[in-house]
């Protein structure tokens, strides 16, 4: 088991996984989101290559109403 910290919350996964698979796992496929891993942007073009591994800090954001 690995632990990923996603938007500040710890979550368990069976093994390290690609960002693209994580996005799918979280039901965010097709949504307009942006992902940051350990303080660095993971570009959409890299979601299929970059792995989320044990202990990673991930931020997944969307656009919301604001002033």
């Amino acid at each position: 088991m690995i632990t990923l910290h996603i938007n500040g919350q710890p979550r368990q996964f069976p093994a390290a996984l690609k960002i693209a698979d994580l996005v799918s796992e979280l039901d965010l496929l097709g949504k307009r989101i942006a992902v940051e891993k350990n303080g660095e942007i993971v570009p959409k073009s890299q979601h299929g290559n970059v792995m989320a591994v044990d202990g990673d800090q991930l931020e997944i954001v969307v656009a919301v109403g604001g002033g």
Partner: protein
Amino acid sequence: MDPLVIAGKIYSSRLLVGTGKYKDFAETRAAIDAAGAEIVTVAIRRTNIGQDPNQPSLLDALPPSQFTYLPNTAGCYTADDAIRTLRLARELLDGHDLVKLEVLGDPQSLYPNVVETLRAAEVLVKDGFKVMVYTSDDPIIAKQLEDIGCVAVMPLASLIGSGMGILNPWNLQIIIDRLSVPVIVDAGVGTASDAAIAMELGCDAVLMNTAIAGARDPVLMASAMKKAVEAGREAWLAGRIAKKTYQASPSSPTSGLIGS
């Protein structure tokens, strides 16, 4: 034609609006249509993991193909958080680099922390962002932000969401006179006359959210703000008469009066 030019792009509306505090996305869209706004601010927030994926999103109500999105850094209190937020926004919006930088000082006043704002602006401009920056009405800081390379400087009229109107028109006037980039009053507008006064001072545009979203009838207020911004702009272009404190000037002929 009297277009507003920001970072080389032409806009016909001088009213920029926020998308927060509306009852639902339908009301957001109706108010923005009534305002005639082309540039709309949005916030960047953590996604709610586990929520219904079919829930409507802001992007459905306001397609980025029809509006210029201006992602903001509302809620950021450090330069680093603001920079991270806007890098996420650029990734989210497929490389879109026009952004609204705001770094706040404290949650009670939401007054800008200009030291952190200057730091963040330097990094973001070097990183290729086109930065529209929220700041205080301090003319020296405003000029420094222009010198760093910000594409628009956006001083407050009064505190965010306060509806107190323009508290220091003299400072705004100095900023307008000294800067070459567009000066946009951002924050503090309460009603239509505040927007008109900002434009009559010579501001290039006005940005507001609460004054519209918080009105009893947001769509009607959006329409009022559109007219106020247009009226204020026309009055500024037309050139107001000088104020004459003690000298009245009759509008009707002074000769040909009966009994003379």
